[in-house]
């Protein structure tokens, strides 16, 4: 039997921490898990995590001596590399640590699927992405963790000169889900794109926290999330982008759009820019609303039922994230995806 709160040398974030004001993980910290389990991957094992982090939750896996794996991509991938994570056992503390490394000038695609078929389990995931000079990584994450399970993904992104990451997320599960991104754009013309679709029902909670530092010139970051929130669900979007000296001619974009589909659904959106230079392009915004009544009426006035019209408009809102995915093979994967194939 073990509890997260008993782990040593971790200062677990609480609601007193700025980024966690709207996220309550105290029940998770105090939950008594019956055992811990490390997700085994068929990749090389690293002695140490490749990168260090300021994120205290990143330390969970290190504290539990989880194996660090490395996926070293040195050739262009014709098909996406697909990694499936399926939680099967109740009340287990699962861990997974993986460093995805893309060699210079390589074009790579990786898909990770997180699903569950159990109750009261927790998955602590550490991901580092190291994309070398002029390389391009298309990464897609599909998350459909079921109710009563929790998933925390701590992501560190390191991009070298002219490297690009297209990072897309579909957050569709009913469990508690936290994503924490740390990116230091230390290299010239590095490109960070993070896209997210967060579709929540019931009592689901999903939080996405981004800390992005522009430290070199002509670096680019674009964080673009869409939330469609039903029932009593709640989502958090906390994006902080800091543009430091030396990051002239950078471009920084943050955007959160939310449709609230119930009176009880809640979004906390906080896009935040901190700019220390003059030469740059930046924008940030957050919108919150419901489905457009005029549009609904127009569809219904042509005989389309209320439910169908509602679905059509919601898909139109959500599809922008799908359309932003640049890798056709990933799009094909999403089109053909059936959850039942994995659980």
């Amino acid at each position, binding site marked *: 039997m073990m509890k997260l709160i008993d782990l040593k040398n971790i200062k677990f974030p609480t609601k007193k921490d700025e980024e966690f004001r709207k996220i309550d993980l105290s029940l998770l910290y105090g939950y008594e898990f019956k055992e811990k389990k490390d997700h085994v991957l068929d990749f090389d094992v690293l002695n140490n995590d490749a990168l260090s982090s300021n994120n205290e939750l990143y330390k969970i896996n290190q504290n539990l001596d989880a194996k660090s794996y490395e996926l070293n991509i040195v050739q262009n991938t014709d098909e996406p590399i697909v990694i499936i994570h399926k939680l099967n056992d109740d009340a287990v503390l699962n861990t997974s640590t993986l460093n995805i490394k893309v060699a210079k000038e390589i074009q790579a695609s990786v898909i990770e699927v997180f699903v569950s078929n159990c109750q009261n389990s927790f998955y602590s995931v550490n991901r580092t992405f190291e994309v070398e000079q002029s390389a391009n990584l298309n990464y897609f994450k599909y998350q459909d963790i079921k109710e009563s399970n929790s998933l925390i993904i701590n992501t560190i992104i390191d991009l070298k000169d002219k490297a690009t990451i297209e990072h897309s997320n579909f957050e569709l599960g009913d469990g508690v889900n936290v994503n924490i991104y740390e990116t230091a754009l230390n290299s010239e013309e590095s490109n960070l794109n993070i896209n997210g679709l967060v579709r929540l029902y019931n009592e689901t909670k999903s939080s996405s926290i981004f800390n992005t530092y522009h430290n070199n010139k002509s670096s680019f970051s674009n964080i673009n999330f869409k939330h469609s929130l039903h029932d009593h669900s709640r989502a958090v979007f906390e994006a902080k982008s800091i543009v430091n000296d030396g990051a002239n001619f950078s471009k920084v974009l943050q955007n959160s759009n939310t449709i609230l589909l119930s009176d009880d659904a809640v979004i906390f959106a906080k896009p935040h820019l901190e700019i220390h230079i003059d030469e740059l392009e930046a924008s940030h915004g957050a919108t919150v609303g419901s489905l457009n*009544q005029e549009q609904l009426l*127009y569809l219904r006035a*042509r*005989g389309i*039922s*209320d439910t169908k019209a509602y679905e*059509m408009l919601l898909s139109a809102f959500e599809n922008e994230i799908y359309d932003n995915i640049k890798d056709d093979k990933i799009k094909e994967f999403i089109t053909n995806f059936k959850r039942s194939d994995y659980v």
Partner: protein
Amino acid sequence: MLDIKDLKVNINDKEILKGLDLKINPGEIHVLMGQNGAGKSTLVKTLSAHFDCEVTDGDIDYKGKDLLELDVSERANEGIFMSFQNPVEVPGVNNSYFLRTAINEKRKYNGQEELDTMEFLKLSKTQLAKFDIDKKLMKRDLNDGFSGGEKKRNELMQLLLLQPELIMLDEIDSGLDVDAIKTVATVVNDMLQEDKNRSLLMITHYDRLLSLIKPDFVHILKDGKIVKTGDYNLALELDSKGYEGIGINDEIN
């Protein structure tokens, strides 16, 4: 087909229609004219169950059914089509998908088999080819970035494919050039010719459209009621003399 009795309608708690009576028989063409604020658009919006309109009194019988008991989509599937004055843009919803969905919802409502993609394309090609309407609009998102004229052409496409029984055109001629107005008239006349039981209720301020689609009845609305009814000659008289000239004084606002 349509029998409206003593209809009273509020918009934002203000009474706009104040006891309107109108009867439209199968195959008839009716025109509503009147100064701004008289209640013309409110009437057609009420008939298509627009959320702005609150019916406070009166009855509407449509093909033997209580129209006020039917919701927006049911009215459409019963054969009522309102051409919007300013069709809303719906980015992300493909026009072709929207049209096929609308047709299939109507077919489902009437207990008919749904059309698959090929059948739909065949139908749309046949219908649109008759009137030289540009099919490119089908590939775009619904009204998204359309010019005023393109939006009106898109309304015509929907009209042609949905084949309604009661057509309501709310100022479809506004902002259209002469050629586009002719296309509207050709489509509507052809549809009326094709089905002699099909009826038309249109709102216009101008004689141009009426010279191409000859009405059986012209109604002048004032202050939420029909105050004068005549034939096409009433529209001609109005065009030459103005409202005051035919005894309709502007004392609405």
